[in-house]
Every structure is written in C-alpha cells, then in structure tokens.
C-alpha cells in the first residue's frame, strides 16, 4: 500500500476542490476563498515536498497505482511547481476579483480542479492517464478563460481556445490510437519495449509521433501552433492568464519529457534524422524567432507577455531536444527553467494586476507610464520580473537560460547553433522587455490621459513577495534548486 501515499497531493487538491464548492455556499467574504485555495495548494506542495526523502521506485510494477500514475521524484517536483504556480494565481485572483467585482465562488474550485488535472497530466505514465489529465485540466481552463461572461472579448477568447483546444485534443487522441494500434500498449514503458523489439509497425509509429507532437505543441503554444495564444491570454482575466502561462505549460512540458524520453526513447526515434529531436528542434527555432518578433510589435503589455511566453516555450524546447542526447543534465535544465519561468511569470502578472484598479485596468504600455515615480514599491517587482524574463543576472531567468544553453552546448553538433540562435533571440527579447522599463521609469503619462491607479491588496502583495524572493534566490543561490532538479532527473532516466 505504500505507493498510495503518492496519491496524497492529488487527493488533497481534488478533495479541497470539492470542499470549496460546499464552503462557497456559506461564505460571505468571497476573497477568503482565495486564502483557502492557496492553503490547499501549498499543502499539496508541502506533502509532495515531505515525500521527497521517502522511498521511490520500489513499488511493485504490477500495482494499480504505478500502472497509471508515476511515483518518482519528477512527479514530486512537477507537483510542487504546478501547485505553487496555481497558489500564486489564486492569490492574485483574490485581489483581482474583488477589485473588479467578479467575485463568484466557482472560480476557486475551477482553479483547484484544473491544477489537479495538470498534476495528473504531469504524472501520467500511460496514454489514457495523459488524455484524462489533459482534458480535466483543459475543461477547467476553458471555463476560466470565459470567466468574465459579460465581456465579448473574454467570451471570444473562451470559444477560440475551446475549439482549437478540442481539435488539438482530437489529434492527440488519434495519435494515441495509432500508437496503441502499432504497439498494442498504452503505457509508455510497454510502448518503448514494443518499438525496441521491432514488434511495432514503424510507419504507424511515425504517424502517431507526428500527431502527438502537434497535439502537445498546441498546448505549449509552439509556433506554428500558437495562433490561439495571444487572443486567449488577452481575453482572459489576468489571474487566469497567469495560471495558463504557468501551470498548463509546465505540466505539458513535464509530460513531454515522459512521452518522448520514455515512450518514444527508442534509438531509431530519438537519434538520426527521422525521429522527434529534429522536429522539436525545428519547432524550438521557429518558436524562439517568431515568439520574440511577435512580442516586439505589441502595444499591450498583456499581449506582449503572451508572446513572450511563446518565446520561452522555445527555450524550454531546446532543453528537451538536448535531453535526447545527454539525458539527465538536460532534463534538470528543463525543470529548472520551468520553476524559474513559473515564479517570474507569476511575478510579472501579479505586478500587472497590481498596477491597475477597478477604475482602470493596466493593460497597455501607456497605462504604466511614470508608474516608477508614482509608486516605486510596485515598480521594483516589475523590474525584477522583467529582468528575470529577459534572462539577466542575478535572477532566476538568467540561470535558467544558462542551464538550457549549457545543455545544448553539451549535446554538441547542430545544437550549438540552436544555443546561438537562442542567445540572439533573447537579445531581441531584451528590446520589448526594456520597453516596460522605459515606460515605468522614463516616461510620463500624456497630458490628460487616464492613468492606471494601483490597487491595494494583501493577496497580490503576498504573491509578489513570495515570487520575488524565489526569483532572487534562484538567481543568487541556484545550487540547492539545481540539486533538486538533478535528483528528479537522475531517478527518472
């Protein structure tokens, strides 16, 4: 029974979500639900952290739990990243919903159920769990994107995301079906075994591979499957945007590690020119170039952050491709990047939410003009978030980029050029991140223009302080975080 303890973080989140639906009926002060949600999620992260020093991989392979859900350190790390990301999004929402009169109780259970789906997805070791996790997560997010029902853009974003998302899920499902047809297995280990022994029809496997890549690339919004991202990110309310950028992406990346490095790890698929590494490398290159170029021309900060999250997916993909060659080190780079990306983005979105209030939400660059002078305490988290996203020392983003580039250089060959492309595109990225700083510190609002008035909210401040501390900690003393990431990657490969 010992392996069942690994289900505890998941149970904590899902039972918490059910309880919240009940509690919602009795609570007057809705923003208290934000605290409760954050506590539940941090509790789940705490359980995962407590399991860290325990015993893994010793569970009998035939047991019910292990056949569906992973019980390794990678699962624990992804639990913590997702739960912390969701908790930060919930705290930001605590301030945001109250300020904008959107307080409706269903928000927090939806966040919890989506986070649960994301955690299941990141732990899945079977195509069926993968699909269930993905759908559980996505359904919650579809509803959350359209949360501001009365707003046309929000509804449009919800529909757009829902239609395209369903389409991608269908492709993924079709790919899974082909893979099952080719190998006769749905679990990753069995699939790998079948491909290795040559029992699988290789044409069918390649077709399945292509479909699965497309389905997953859609969720991480890799170019050219990114078209929905800017609209969905902009139409959704900002806390939901943060949740999508952080949790959805992280969980899909973790499951990509599992799919590609376990299920499709056979040499004929992971080396040479016909497997997934060249395809993902091409996606990475396209994503970095077009994500950064797209972000440059935006006039809305929120939309810029959407494009920047596309660009970041490109950098993470570099790590994933490198993992085909060097394994552990590249996987730990991916995990480190995900953690750094989670806190930096939560900080950026938190600061963006905080900069606006019910009278005027801060969305465009103009809204931020002169904020550094009017409210320096808000400008500092913004500065930190932007520097971290830019990959500037001494912040989390810098070491994240460093580890990913290091992994690429280690993998050698054409990967070095991918790292060079990554370096050049991050320089291009500096341009639009700097614009935020230009408006914060160097511009004054135009005469008579309405300026955004920062809100007051203890929730958002708590989220920003936490995220800010972690961003700095990961930038100044990255060692302990890296050790955790390597340990998770070690047990895994």
């Amino acid at each position, binding site marked *: 029974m010992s392996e069942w303890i690994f289900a505890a973080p998941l149970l904590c989140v899902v039972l918490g979500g059910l309880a919240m639906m009940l509690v919602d009926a009795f609570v007057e002060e809705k923003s208290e639900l934000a605290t409760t949600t954050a506590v539940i999620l941090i509790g789940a992260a705490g359980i995962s952290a407590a399991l860290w020093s325990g015993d893994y991989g010793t569970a009998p392979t035939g047991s019910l739990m292990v056949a569906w859900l992973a019980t390794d350190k990678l699962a624990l790390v992804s639990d913590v990243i997702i739960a912390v990301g969701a908790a930060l999004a919930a705290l930001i929402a605590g301030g945001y919903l109250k300020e904008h009169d959107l307080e409706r109780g269903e928000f927090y259970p939806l966040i919890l159920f989506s986070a649960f789906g994301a955690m299941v997805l990141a732990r899945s070791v079977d195509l069926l769990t993968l699909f269930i996790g993905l759908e559980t997560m996505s359904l919650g997010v579809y509803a959350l994107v359209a949360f501001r029902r009365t707003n046309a853009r929000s509804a449009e974003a919800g529909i757009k995301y829902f239609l395209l998302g369903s389409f991608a899920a269908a492709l993924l499902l079709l790919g899974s079906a082909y893979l099952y047809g080719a190998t006769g297995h749905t679990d990753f280990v069995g699939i790998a075994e079948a491909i290795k022994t040559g029992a699988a029809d290789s044409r069918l496997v390649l077709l399945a591979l292509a479909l699965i890549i497309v389905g997953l690339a859609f969720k991480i919004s890799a170019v050219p499957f990114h078209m929905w991202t800017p609209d969905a990110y902009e139409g959704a309310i900002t806390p939901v945007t943060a949740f999508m950028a952080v949790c959805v992406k992280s969980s899909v990346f973790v499951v990509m590690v599992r799919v590609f490095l376990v299920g499709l790890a056979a040499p004929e698929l992971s080396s040479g020119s016909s497997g997934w590494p060249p395809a993902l490398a091409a996606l990475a290159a396209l994503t970095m170039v077009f994500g950064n170029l797209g972000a440059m021309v935006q006039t809305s900060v929120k939309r810029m952050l959407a494009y920047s999250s596309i660009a970041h997916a490109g950098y993470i993909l570099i790590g994933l491709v490198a993992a085909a060659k060097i394994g552990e080190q590249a996987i730990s780079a991916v995990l480190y990047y995900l953690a750094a990306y989670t806190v930096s983005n939560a900080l950026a979105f938190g600061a963006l939410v905080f900069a606006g209030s019910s009278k005027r939400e801060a969305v465009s660059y103009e809204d931020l003009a002169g904020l550094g002078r009017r409210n320096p305490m808000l400008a500092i988290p913004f500065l930190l978030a932007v520097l971290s996203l830019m990959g500037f020392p001494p912040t989390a983003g810098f070491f994240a980029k460093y580890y990913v580039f*290091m992994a690429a250089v280690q993998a050698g060959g054409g990967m070095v050029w991918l*790292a060079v492309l990554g370096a*050049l595109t991050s320089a291009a990225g500096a341009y639009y991140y700097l614009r935020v700083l230009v408006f914060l*510190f*160097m511009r004054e609002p135009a005469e008579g223009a309405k300026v955004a008035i920062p809100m007051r909210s203890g929730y958002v401040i708590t989220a920003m302080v936490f995220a800010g501390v972690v961003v700095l900690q990961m930038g100044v003393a*990255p*060692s302990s975080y890296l050790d955790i990431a390597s340990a998770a990657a070690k047990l895994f490969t």
Partner: protein
Amino acid sequence: MLLEFVVSLHLLTGDYTSGTYQYVANYDLVPAYGIAYTVGLDGISLWLVMLTTFVTPLALYASWTSIDTKVKEFALCFLFLEVAMIGAFIALDLFLFYVFWELLLVPMYLIIGIWGGKERIYASVKFFLYTMVGSLLMFVAIVYIATAYRELAGAYSFDIRKLSEVVLEGKTQMFLFGAFALAFAIKVPMFPFHTWLPDAHVQAPTGGSVILAAVLLKMGTYGFVRFAMPLFPLASHRFAPTLCVLAVVGIIYGAYCAWVQKDVKKLVAYSSVSHLGFVMLGLFSITRQGVGGAILQMVNHGISTGALFLLVGVIYERRHTRLLADFGGLAKVMPLYTLLFVIVTMSSVGLPGTNGFIGEFMVLNGTFLSRNLPTPFFFALFASTGVILAAVYMLHAVLKMFWGPLDNPENQGLADVGGRELTVLAPLIAMVFLLGFAPSLFLDRMNPSVEAFLRDYNRKLQDSNYNDNVHLLKAEASRSTTQQVALHVGDGQ
C-alpha cells in the same frame, strides 16, 4: 564611496613583482557547475580598480547640483554601478565576470534613461541592446569553453587560471574569439561598432558620461587583455592584424568625426573612439611596450576624458548649450576654467609632461617593434597621424570656445569655476601631472604582470601552433590579405 577609495589604496601595498594574482579569495557558488566567487588582482586590474574608485566619487560629487530629481535613486544607481565595475575588474571566474558585466548595464541604462537629455530613451535602449547582443554571444562562448574544459579535466570550472590551460583546436578558437571579440569590441567601442557611443554620451548626465568614458569603456579593452587573448592565443594572433587595421581606422575616423562636431560633448565622445583605437593597437601589437602603454593609456584616457566631460558639464550647467558656435572669448570671463580646460586638452592631445604623452609614446613604440603585424611601420605611421589630428580637433575646440571676441551677450558675466567644481577637478589635474612626470610609479607595479601575460601568451601560441599545422598555413594566407586591406586604407587617407 570616498571610504571605498581609501580602502582601495591599501591594495597598492600588495606585492605585484611576481605578476601573479594578489588578494585571491575563493568561495564556491554552484559547485555542481564549478561556478565560484573567485576574485583577485594583478598589476593590470589594480590600476583599473584604482581608477574606478578614484573617478566614481568625483563623478557623483560633480552631479551635486545638476541632478535635482530623484537624488536618492541616482546615488543608488551609482553605488550599484561601482559594485559591478569593481566586480568585473577583479573577477577571476569567467561566470562571475559575466554576471558583473551584465549587471552594470542596468544602472547605466537607468542613469542615461532617467536623468539624461532629450533623446535619452533612444540612447539608453540603443546602449543596452548593442551591449546585450554582443554579450549574449559571449555567454554561449563561455559555456562552450567550460564544456570543453569538462571534457578534458572531468569537472566544470570557470576559473580563468584553469581555463587558460585549455588549448582549443584552431577553428573553434576562431569562433569563440569572434564571440568574445564582438562583445568587447562593442564595449570599447571599436570602429565600426561605435555608433552607440556618441548617442549615449551626449544624452547621459555629466556624472554618467564621466563613468561611461572613464571606466565602462575600459571593460572592453580589459576583457581583451584578461580573457580573450589568454584564452584564444592562436585566434588573437590571427585576428591581430585585422583588429589593428580597425583600430587605426578608428583612430583616424574618430578624429575626423570629432573635428567636424558642433557639439563639444559629441566631440569628446568621438575623441574617445580615437583614443581607444590607440589602446587596441597597443594591445594587439603584442609587445611589452605596446601592451604596457595600452594599459597606461586606459588609465590616462579615464582621467583626461573624465575631466573633459566634467568641464563640459560645468559650462553646460551655466549656459544649457554645448554648441561651439554659442561660445567664444570665454577666456575673458572664465580664466580659471580656461586654464583647466587647456591643461586637460594638452593631456588629451599627449603633450610631453602630461600623462597622455607617455601612453601614446609607448603604444607607438610598441607598434613599431611589433613582429606580429605585417608592416608595423605603416600602422605606426597612420596611428601617429591620429596624434596630429587630435591636436587639430582639440585646439580647434579650444579656439572656438575660449579665444576670439566675446560677442555673445549671454556669455558675459558667466561665473568662473566654483569651489565644489574645483574640488572635483583638482585631483584629476594632479593625476595628469603625476602620471606625466612619474609614470614609473605605475609602470613598476604593472610591468611584471604585463611580462607574465606576454610570456604566457607566447608560450601558448607555440603550443597551439604545434597542435595545429594546417590552420597555420591559412593564417599565412590571411596575413597577406589583411596587408592589402591595410594598404587600401592607407590609400583612402
């Protein structure tokens, strides 16, 4: 900051006779990747650290009245800047160096962008992006060396003393040197990467210009002598003629541009391009006099150009214009100011008895003796026309500003240099003469390090030649083409 200078005086008492590093301190930061906090000084970095601690408080004090908004933040930026500058000069760990190198961009960016002139945002973004593009490529190169070191030695290290044991294969060296050289050449700035400099200088507040000219530009040349040349001796050997041609072009082009400027500050900015051409020429002549002269010239340029910017700042504060046409006959109303300006001009031009003379003489001498350059005579010849041109443009400026009729009514009744301004300028003037009459004070501490650098460099050059016969033949071929380039440039003048 004054305290900082007093503390740094203590460093002079160290033993610099052996040419090795003094005051070495070492703490591991990220043991898994061999990143450590390793700092130390030798006779080369000693003077740059002294220059930094000497000029920074003066620059801040000079801003006493000209900065009237956000004074606290300005001082904060200056302190951060000083930390990063000293850190970059004393870092012996390549990773640490990179962190400081990037770190000093932010305060400088803010200083130009917040307290600068009309076009400050354009100038600050241009400054930031130029430097960022170069340094990100350098970052990939740093990662590459560390990876190469790990393959040879079995563990990561970024310690420059360990990394310089690696002898890389010729073609790789060329690529990596190219990446480093681009980063440093942009910072120096070498022709044709200098276009950010006039913008940044003209828009920056006086204090910012002083630091930019006196210290920040030295980062580039220091980077060449401390990192690029010892790490890639073969590549530097092959690139040397090309870089020297660019240096000579920079000397003459910068001087011509300075000559035709209408704005005094822009004139001084272009004169920096010209002066740093001398430094680069000295470094890549790879002779004892050349390298020693180049390092001395770095310090000299810091003092005299720093003083020039301060003097321009003095007149700008009184008249709010810097156009040469607006002045004339100032000697009648501001005799003391005129005297100071003429002294600094003489030092900048390189009149015997001032600091500039010693440095330029050593550089030209070293260029003559260089066995590395194809036709040292022509290099030295064209470089010395730069000295003449320097006299032309500086004296042209002095003539326009101080002599002639005092015909502009606004210039009548201008106050002469005040007590505070004199306090700032006096130490600089004192240094001009101290370096001019007693250069051995400086050279004695510097020479052992320069000799050690050259010994090491030549030894490694032999090593890599030995390992790499094929590429050596190519070097012979490229040598003749660069000779043609040199002649071509000669025709152009």
